């Protein structure tokens, strides 16, 4: 197992941990049986810009670091831009992940997409 310094930094002092008040897009992927759950909270303003993002994660170091990095990267982006967000963006920003840990970054990307979908669903119901 070999984590980069950026991964270790994001694991040790993760940014955006916890729930944000008034989140209007929430996505969760994974299951405890699989050993990883990622929950992403988004606060999207009327212009469709992600004003704030946060996470709660049950998972390995790579999962925590991916959550931290991914939330940090999408804050300030439009939901269109965030919709194109891919796991490889997280991996690159982390300076790489061990091969067997790539799926943890996939979880982060999926959780973000789930949160955006949740936002759209909620909006459609309004």
């Amino acid at each position, binding site marked *: *197992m070999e*984590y980069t310094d950026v991964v*270790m930094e994001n*694991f*040790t002092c*993760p940014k955006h*941990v*916890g729930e944000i008040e008034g989140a209007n897009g929430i996505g*969760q992927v994974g*299951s*405890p*049986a*699989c*050993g*990883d*759950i*990622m*929950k992403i909270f988004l606060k999207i303003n009327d212009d469709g810009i992600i004003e704030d993002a946060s996470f*709660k*994660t*049950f*998972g*390995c*170091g790579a*999962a*925590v670091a991916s959550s931290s990095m991914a939330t940090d990267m999408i804050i300030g982006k439009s939901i269109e831009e965030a919709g194109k967000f891919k796991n490889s963006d997280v991996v690159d920003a982390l300076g790489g992940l*061990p*091969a*067997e*840990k790539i799926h943890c970054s996939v979880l982060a990307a999926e959780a973000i997409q789930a949160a955006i979908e949740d936002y759209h669903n909620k909006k459609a119901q309004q």
Partner: protein
Amino acid sequence: MKRIYLDHAATTPVDPAVVETMLPFFTEYFGNPSSVYTEGRGVKKSIEAARLQIAKAINADPREIYFTGSGSESDNWAIKGIAMKNQAKGKHIITSTIEHHAVLHTCEYLEKQGFEITYLPVDEYGLISLDDLRNAIRKDTILVTIMFANNEIGTIEPIKEIGEIVKEKGIIFHTDAVQALGNIPVDVKDLNVDLLSISAHKIYGPKGIGALFIRKGVPIDNLIHGGAQERKKRAGTENTAEIVAFGKAAEMATEHLEENAAHMKELRDLLIKGVMDNIPQVRLNGHPEKRLPGNVNFCFDYIEGESILLSLDIIGVAGSSGSACTSGSLDPSHVLLAIGLPAGVAHGSLRLTIGKHTTEEDINYVVDNLIQIIERLRKMSPINAD
């Protein structure tokens, strides 16, 4: 930062006294022990002296000790060697669900070759039931292989009682004692075992050297064919340096067994008490008493093992986990599942294994920090119950 190593079940540092004994065998006494000339002759004597040290450590005859390249090779040899040699008598083998992979995967391989394996279940503490064993024995059972002590949860199986049952039926009995040696008394005469696997790197010897005890007269095929080494039972030029080191390590382990075990037990109980008293929603895996003196294994609800390990690593503590994530596979430890833990819980396991050099200070440091680490990780968890 001072490092605190608490993964002695994974491997141990080689004792400086053991390193000392092996050094001359690389450059000075390097001769091939099978040779006629001076360089080879002394080497042969050293190997036989090491064999005697190993024999004494488990109360065997030196002619019943065969050196191998690892504990895994010993397990493979014992099981495949007995299976192949005795298949005319039957093709049924009994083992347990909590064996080391060296035993389990060997059994699974034999299944593909037409053998039938019974995997005995264990109770919540990891103990097999003697009644289950009695019921599993068939006319065509040729081998029972049950580990002496489990590497993850430290549970000690009733080997002597198993040996009695198996012996009565005339079946061959193998035990994987890799975790037992150096931690609890191992006496092949008392235990009624026919084959027993051990490995040097768990008792402050080097990695890559193991041994298999084969009781005289037990019919077994070779696993590694070739030269006449090890009385024609295990080919390959002898790993002289590591054999001599294994001998020394075994001698030291035997000599200090009681004192080391008492020391580890004290610290183990201190660690268990410290964690159980101060951290909520934690469970101790394994048997409360029938457990290795150095083994501690917890499950912390709502958090995952690798996160704990990494957090400990950052503050200088080396531990291990039966969690999926550490091995890059998605399955949690087969041992934790076998004792009945749900997969979600099994993912949050932490194994800390104490060694002869561990101090009370180390344990206190770990407990203090673990309290904070668990709290912090639980705050981050989406499945925290609060």
